[in-house]
């Protein structure tokens, strides 16, 4: 097993990390064993195996001597050439070690900065998400109201209470408002989906580390909430709403924890 440290195949170009052993592919050291246990990494193992193969002496297949009809020679056994003793890998220089230390320290700094930024984005995401949800809820109400008015209008027209012309005029104006709201709702839902798609990977990464304590905290809050219901401090309605929200969060965090542990 190699010693703890940074994988020799890892290198950085600006803010991105790449792996020499994975055909210079971009890697995320937070999710790859580049910093700890890199000797378990498949790319590293493959490279190591290649390296061993190259260091081993080349096995030369025995040459078949050319024979001629005129001259027949019996091949005599050649004396075995002793193999040179394996060369010990040169010790890394102090500069190399220092460079690695610096790279590992830099990684730590980058991770901290990533974590800070990701947390800010997640906080903002939760707020924006709640606002979008409220807006979508309002639009749903609006759409329902217009749909009901449209039904009412059709009924009035059927009963002959309004003229055909009047019906068409009001229907056109309701349809226009309705389609504006439906399109806005669809647009917001799409944006919400886009937002979730880009933020969720960061959410998972950040929350993975704190899933366990967070779940414990949420379970404790659930127990307290039960007590509040029993003592009549909260209404059944509020209790049910919050309980379902907390259970949902617990489930989500458990899923994240399972994914990380897998």
């Amino acid at each position, binding site marked *: 097993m190699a010693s703890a440290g940074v994988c020799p195949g890892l290198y950085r170009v600006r803010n991105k990390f790449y792996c020499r052993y994975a055909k210079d592919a971009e890697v995320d050291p937070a999710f790859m064993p580049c910093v700890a246990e890199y000797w378990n990494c498949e790319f590293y193992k493959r490279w190591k195996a290649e390296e061993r193969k190259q260091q081993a002496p080349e096995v030369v297949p025995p040459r078949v001597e050319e024979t001629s009809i005129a001259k027949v020679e019996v091949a005599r056994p050649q004396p075995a050439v002793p193999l040179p003793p394996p060369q010990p890998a040169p010790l890394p220089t102090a500069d190399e070690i220092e460079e690695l230390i610096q790279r590992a320290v830099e990684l730590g700094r980058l991770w901290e900065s990533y974590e800070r930024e990701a947390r800010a984005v997640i906080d903002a995401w939760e707020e924006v998400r709640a606002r979008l949800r409220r807006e979508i*809820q309002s639009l749903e109400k609006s759409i329902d*109201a217009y749909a009901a008015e449209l039904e*009412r*209008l059709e*009924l009035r027209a059927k009963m002959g209470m*309004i003229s055909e012309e009047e019906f068409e005029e009001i229907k056109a104006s309701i349809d226009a408002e309705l389609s504006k709201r439906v399109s806005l709702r669809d647009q917001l839902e799409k944006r919400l989906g886009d937002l979730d798609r880009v933020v969720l990977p960061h959410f998972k990464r950040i929350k993975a580390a704190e899933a366990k304590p967070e779940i414990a*905290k*949420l379970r404790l809050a659930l127990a307290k*909430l039960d007590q509040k219901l029993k003592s009549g401090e*909260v209404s059944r309605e509020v209790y049910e709403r919050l309980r379902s929200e907390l259970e949902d969060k617990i489930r989500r965090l458990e899923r994240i924890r399972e994914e990380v542990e897998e």
Partner: protein
Amino acid sequence: MMSLAERANTVRELFEQVDRLWDSYVGEVKKVLREWGRLRPLLAERLSVLRSRIASNLEEMQELNLKLELGLVDEAKARRRLEELNAETPKLVRELEELWVLTERITRDSILHMKRAGIPVDISEEDVVSKEREAEECFKASVISRETFERLKEILAEQLAALKPLSPD
């Protein structure tokens, strides 16, 4: 001294004038009803959105306070959001109360004039009863004040009375 024929002609002219006034009244009623028909969907939509938004703000306020007690939210953030909700909700309530009372008053007037003008009424007693229930639910959920609820109840009772068949006198 007017002759009998002259007097009879005067009465006939008065009836003709009454007819003209009646036609003009019915014409005006129809005009106002058309305008009301255009406005009603907009009001219905706004009222629906306001009710939903106020109810959701009130729920959020209750939940935020509870989450604060349970230590589930960042206090500074929760307080900021509570301030926002405390500022926004009364404004929405005022708008809802004003528009709701106005809508029901116009509906009551429309029933009265449709009945008088002999135009079929497009609202049933069941509709009014269901509106009463909705107002009561909104009052219980603190979406509207008691004062507004009482005012609405009064107007809805007038709508029900207006829907009853007109007395022969």
